[in-house]
């Protein structure tokens, strides 16, 4: 039993219906909205499973359904749906994680007055995300891309009465939109060059070899056309996936409710950039065979990914907010995925994307559970000692932490990270990204150990932490399921690389090569050990006591805690610039454009004054004289107006008589 591509639209349509229900019910209809959201998501999950079954039957085929959107000239603008293993795996992952997070949210958002809106927005997000995944058209993908951005905006700003949340929402939208403009330009370019935006269209699609061959010509700047287009599209991914240098919005996005962070800013939406690049991989890779170009698109991707991976991990070390640590960890992990694509192994990237979705969702939900229990205390320095009080949360959180750190063999994160390292190691262009990734692995293990140690060990360091207790099953059950998945997903890669094979049947199996396993285990152990040495052995006793690392490199730690000053940098450059430009535009408005008009008006007024003086002195006098004469004549003639109606009539009659006489005489003549 499988879902044919003709019915693929049902998957996003179900949550969209739930969003509509949520939008149209009154505020009191939270149960209805939540129920609709969960039920439709469960339905979408089942359908996604069916679709996966259908896709796995023909792993190499791209099943498409293309349709006309509206007429444009002699042809029409076409959109399409696509079903292949990539789509199907993503669909299953998104629907499954969404389902769990929806369930978690019923517990987490229990006390919120706007919970109905929350589920409406979540459903809208899920619909847009699923639409993005199943799109067979870069345009449809872009449409859904913007809609997930909208949902993200709405959900980050869900607690809109907090100014920080409202600002963070705006920041997220604007920052991602900067990237999206690049995406849009790339899309326009592609459309202009190829005349279509369909990925696969029976040989005419933009990802098919015939079309890709069109794009290998060189531009005046030396780049290949496909490189330029690919990099523009990559701009979108940079914005959406929080890559350097547009990663600044992602940590701020943690102002949203934690389920949102888990779903959108860890598991799904931010991974959309990775998905996008994976989806257009043939385009990105189209310039690989050209030798005479200064740079290949994938090289840029790899370096950006490596920078992001290392930078995110570094900054995460110095953060104190439980969600920010996870957020920077997300940035870092997304960097890994980009790196994987950049070095040519998009399969590894997708594998990591899937495993990361589960364990990062798990970690965020665990963090949410902690935050919920600790009455919205998020500072790890003020938490502590939660292990005995929240056993389930601790156990699942620990599993997530180990998966993220890459603890060997048992945890899915190990296998996916291993695949990425392996791919990076084998990259011919440069080895720098590989070393950055290796360093990142150590740091990841380190900061995750720090996080767990600070939160769960030691003594409670605030009232909120000491009063914490385990949460309701609505919140713990999803944790348990996600934890199980984080472990079970190892099976996708080991003992045989089943997933890789399903995603890319053409690629040869590499998983047998275990040469990097041992160094990797050493690195992870190093990170874990260092973390435990600094934070676990002697737990912090007071919230105010300084971080152990501050003693070694206070300047570096301060810079890292300040996120390397990106926000300040942007405020000082881009913000200042746009504000200045706006001031200039406003100035031009008031003084130049309007001023020109006022100047002209003044000229007109002046000429009017001159003309009036001229009239008063010159013309009017003459006219006055003429008018007087005219008036006097009128007075004279008006004497004929005697007021005697009879007289008039008599005159009239006499005139008639005279006239008739004239006529008669004339007739006689």
């Amino acid at each position: 039993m499988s879902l044919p591509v003709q019915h693929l639209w049902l998957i996003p349509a179900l949550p969209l219906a739930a969003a509509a229900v949520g939008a149209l019910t009154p505020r009191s209809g939270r149960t209805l909205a939540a129920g609709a959201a969960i039920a439709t998501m469960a339905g979408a999950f089942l359908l996604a499973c069916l679709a996966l079954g259908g896709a796995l039957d023909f792993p190499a085929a791209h099943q498409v359904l293309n349709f006309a959107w509206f007429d444009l000239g002699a042809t029409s603008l076409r959109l399409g749906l696509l079903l292949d293993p990539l789509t199907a795996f993503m669909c299953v992952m998104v629907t499954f994680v969404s389902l769990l997070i929806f369930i978690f949210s019923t517990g987490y958002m229990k006390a919120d007055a706007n919970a109905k809106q929350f589920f409406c927005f979540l459903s809208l997000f899920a619909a847009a995300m699923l639409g993005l995944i199943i799109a067979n058209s870069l345009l449809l993908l872009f449409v859904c891309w913007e809609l997930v951005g909208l949902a993200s905006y709405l959900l980050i700003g869900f607690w809109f009465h907090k100014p920080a949340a409202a600002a963070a929402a705006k920041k997220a939208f604007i920052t991602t939109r900067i990237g999206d403009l690049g995406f849009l330009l790339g899309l326009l370019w592609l459309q202009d060059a190829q005349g279509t935006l369909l990925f696969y269209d029976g040989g005419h699609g933009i990802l098919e070899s015939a079309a890709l061959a069109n794009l290998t010509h060189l531009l005046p700047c030396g780049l290949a056309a496909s490189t330029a287009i690919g990099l523009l599209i990559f701009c979108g991914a940079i914005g959406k996936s929080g890559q350097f240098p547009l990663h600044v919005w992602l940590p701020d996005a943690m102002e949203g409710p934690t389920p949102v962070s888990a779903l959108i800013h860890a598991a799904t939406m931010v991974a959309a950039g990775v998905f996008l690049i994976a989806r257009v991989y043939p385009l990105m890779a189209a310039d690989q065979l050209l030798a005479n170009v200064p740079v290949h698109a994938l090289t840029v991707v790899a370096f950006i990914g490596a920078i992001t991976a290392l930078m995110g991990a570094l900054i995460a070390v110095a953060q104190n907010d439980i969600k920010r640590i996870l957020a920077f960890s997300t940035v870092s992990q997304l960097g890994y995925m980009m790196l994987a694509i950049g070095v040519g192994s998009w399969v590894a990237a997708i594998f990591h994307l899937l495993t990361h979705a589960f364990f990062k969702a798990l970690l965020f939900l665990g963090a949410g559970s902690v935050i919920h229990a600790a009455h919205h205390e998020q500072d790890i320095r003020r938490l502590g000692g939660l292990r005995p009080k929240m056993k389930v949360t601790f156990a699942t959180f620990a599993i997530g932490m180990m998966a993220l750190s890459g603890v060997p063999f048992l945890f899915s994160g190990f296998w996916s990270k291993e695949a990425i390292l392996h791919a990076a190691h084998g990259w011919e262009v440069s080895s720098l990204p590989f070393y950055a990734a290796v360093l990142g692995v150590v740091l990841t293990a380190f900061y995750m150990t720090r996080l767990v140690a600070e939160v769960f060990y030691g003594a409670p360091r605030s009232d909120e932490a000491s009063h914490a207790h385990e949460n309701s099953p609505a919140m713990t059950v999803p944790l348990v399921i996600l934890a199980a998945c984080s472990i079970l997903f190892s099976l996708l890669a080991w003992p045989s690389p089943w997933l890789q094979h399903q995603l890319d049947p053409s690629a040869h199996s590499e998983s047998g090569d275990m040469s990097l396993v041992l160094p990797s285990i050493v690195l992870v152990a190093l990170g874990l050990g260092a973390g435990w040495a600094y934070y676990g052995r002697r737990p912090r006793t007071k919230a105010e006591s300084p971080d152990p690392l501050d003693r070694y490199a206070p300047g570096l730690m301060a810079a890292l805690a300040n996120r390397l000053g990106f926000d300040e940098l942007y405020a000082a450059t881009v913000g200042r610039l746009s504000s200045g430009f706006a001031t200039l535009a406003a100035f031009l408005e008031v003084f130049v454009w309007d001023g020109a008009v006022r100047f002209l008006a003044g000229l007109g007024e002046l000429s009017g004054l001159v003309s009036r003086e001229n009239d008063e002195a010159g013309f009017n006098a003459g006219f006055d004289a003429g008018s007087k004469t005219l008036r006097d004549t009128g007075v004279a003639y008006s004497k004929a107006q005697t007021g005697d109606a009879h007289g008039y009539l008599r005159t009239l009659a006499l005139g008639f008589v005279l006239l008739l006489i004239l006529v008669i005489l004339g007739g006689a003549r």
Partner: protein
Amino acid sequence: MHRERTRNEYEKENEWQPAAARRCPVNIPLLSLLIFTPWVGALLLFVLRRRLSASLGRILPILFSLSTLILGGIVLARFNPVITGMQFTEKHAWITALNVHYHIGLDGLSLVLVLLTGIISPLALFGPTRQVRCPAIHGALFLLLQGSALGVFLALDFFPWFVFWELSLVPAFFLIKLWGGPGAARAAYQFVIYTIGGSAFMLLGFAAIFAETRTFDFLELKLISMGGQAPILFGGAATTWVFLGVLLGLAVKVPLFPFHAWLPPAYAEAPTGTSMFLTSVMSKMGAYGFLRILWPLFPLQFHAAAPILLWLALGGVVLSAFAAMKQTDLKRMVAYSSINHLSYCLLAMCAVATAGPVNPAFPAVMIGTSESGIAALSGTILQLFNHGLSAAALFFCVGVLESRTGGLRGLGDFGGVRTAAPVFAGLCGIALFSSLGLPGLNGFIGEFLIFRGVFGLAPWVAAVATLGLLATALFLLTFWQRVFHGPATGAGVNFRDLDATEIATLGPLIVLMFVLGIFPQLLAGLINPLVTTWAATLP
């Protein structure tokens, strides 16, 4: 003896009824009805202004105004989109000595704008006019304005066209001056004098054209100018001057940057309903003039001037968006966003004119260019309609803010309105996102097509113009954030949510935004054949 006759037989024998009257509904002059029904309403209201109760004085104009929508619907039902020429034409001699005809007709472009007028006008009368002074006179002026705008969209002879064009200024002037805000008098004078100043040059231009060709008819002039022979109108420089005159008249109306100085104060000071109409319908008159007059009549000159105009339009896109960021008056902000959106239309038209093949005898167009041209022109028309919807909705939202607070509309006067008024926040948010071109809402389609077209013809211009998109997002989100988000402060405390009337005003606009965002074919199908023909012949 008398034969017993049935009634039908009897009437059959009665030939006194004119035969034409029996098969009546074939030759109804639909377009004349479209134009003049609002005028009749205006006259009626003006005559009865003292007799009408306040509520009747409010309802009657709405009913008359609805006539446009109803008649427009009938026209839509009978409209044949495949025909790219004029339909429903009526032509009667008017002033024989000047060869002036009352010639009206409609193609896809006119139809789209007529429908827009039909949608916006009743809403602009319905929503914001509950507390308006002298509703009957207000309604009469508004209907006069509406009829004139329709006349502009339908007239095919310069003379009546110009009459409608100028006539629309009179009611607009009074509406702004008498019902507007504190600075209304100045804004109204500026608006009228600026526009009349522009159209004076246009009139001169057409006088010159008439002197040369002895006709005012757009279609005939188009035939002359595109007749295949070399430039017919005048030789050399004279045509350029005529072109510049006409261009100036239209450019002021659109407005083309930097002739836009009148717009922000006029829109900001006008009463809400008038603002809605001005921005949705009246601003379209200029763009319509570009497509209907300037381009067909002066293809060569337009092509020559297009590169400069393209940069001006680009300036409009970018500078007005950035200028909007610095506005603290919400209405001025929305007014600048209007300039920004209309500049996209100009951008698209100028891009097509810049690139297009000038010589109609040279049809060997590159496929890509032609597709870009089609996309740009379609985008222009769709953008005209979509901007009409979203800008009207935005002005209405600002009007709601004003009406709740007795005229406050500063960016800092509100805060956290969403807490108390979720419905208002939601609908206003949809309008905002439509305006900033969010996919799924109507604004995206037009902007996408415009960018698609402009990119194909002038890539760097498109790239720079994206700055405008960014700035639009910035200031609209600032609007939304400052007014609706954050803790409830200022006038946002205990803000009353929308009532049924206001929802009924915004509702149709919002619904249309969704419908057209998802099914653009509804509009695109009307204009596509026309635009395809244009792209092949016009530039």
